[in-house]
């Protein structure tokens, strides 16, 4: 199992654990590195009942067919990426078997599964001013009337792309960025947060 071996996340270079120790009074924004576990891109035809059922049976989540929505249960998330494309995010031990299980469940269907667990870094963003920070860098409307808990969208963040997922109404967001852009995205977000008071939290779940 690779878990027991040394690995280095995209944001390790920033030394965030040490920075998380510095307390900030009433932060408007809190940033954290999120370690989410296995990420798989799943492709297939949502109109095929067997496909949706197959994905559901393995992940325990309904396939989100409504554009720009995500389904989440515990530490499992299934995000809509396109009309025939989803991202499954599953935390916990031993989940590298997930791709195999999915492939077995979908064996007779036209589908594709790509392991992208290392493709994206995930940054957690929350706090009363979190939405303000994002609106500096994305032209997507994030007003609660149109983007709420369970919404996700692929958009710009400054000069890079992100997959944005709103986890709750606080608001709390997960921001997925391509790994090589992670340091840029982090520094962009922390710069943009500074005027509201920025706190850095310790990492979330460990892969």
């Amino acid at each position, binding site marked *: 199992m690779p878990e027991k071996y040394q690995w280095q996340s995209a944001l390790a270079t920033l030394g965030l654990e040490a920075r998380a120790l510095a307390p900030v009074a009433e932060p408007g924004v809190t940033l954290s590195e999120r370690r989410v576990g296995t990420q798989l891109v799943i492709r297939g035809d949502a109109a095929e009942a067997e496909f949706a059922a197959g994905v559901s049976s393995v992940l325990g989540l309904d396939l989100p067919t409504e*554009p720009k929505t995500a389904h989440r249960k515990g530490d499992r998330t299934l995000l809509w990426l*396109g*009309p025939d494309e989803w991202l499954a995010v599953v935390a916990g031990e031993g989940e590298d078997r997930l791709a195999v299980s999915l492939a077995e469940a979908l064996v007779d269907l036209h589908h594709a599964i790509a392991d992208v667990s290392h493709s994206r870094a995930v940054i957690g963003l929350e706090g009363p001013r979190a939405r303000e920070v994002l609106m500096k860098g994305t*032209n997507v409307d994030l007003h609660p009337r149109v983007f709420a808990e369970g919404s996700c969208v692929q*958009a710009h963040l400054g000069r890079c792309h992100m997959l944005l997922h709103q986890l709750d109404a606080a608001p709390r967001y997960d921001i997925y960025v391509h790994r090589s852009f992670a340091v840029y995205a982090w520094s962009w977000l922390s710069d943009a947060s500074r005027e509201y008071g920025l706190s850095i939290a310790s990492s979330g779940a460990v892969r």
Partner: protein
Amino acid sequence: MLLIECPWCGPRDDQDFTYGGEAHIARPERPEKLSDEQWGDYLFMRSNPKGTHLERWVCNGCRRWFNVCRDTVTDEITAVYRMGEKPPGAIKKAGRKS
């Protein structure tokens, strides 16, 4: 900056899209059967109308290609429709060079 409605992601600024030229130009089934002139026509000749233009765009969010009907004078977008679909209603593709 244009506001374009992706059939899946909804309205977004044009920086979230990439332009892909005139729509409904089918790649010939048997390119080897075409004369140089016919192939050149497929490759290079476009209608370039003043007014209604059917064109292809790709959404940089969901990465799907789709068709847009845009007025080249006013930049007004009157319809968007999916790849493989025909332009809705009364919209006609501007005539190719005869």
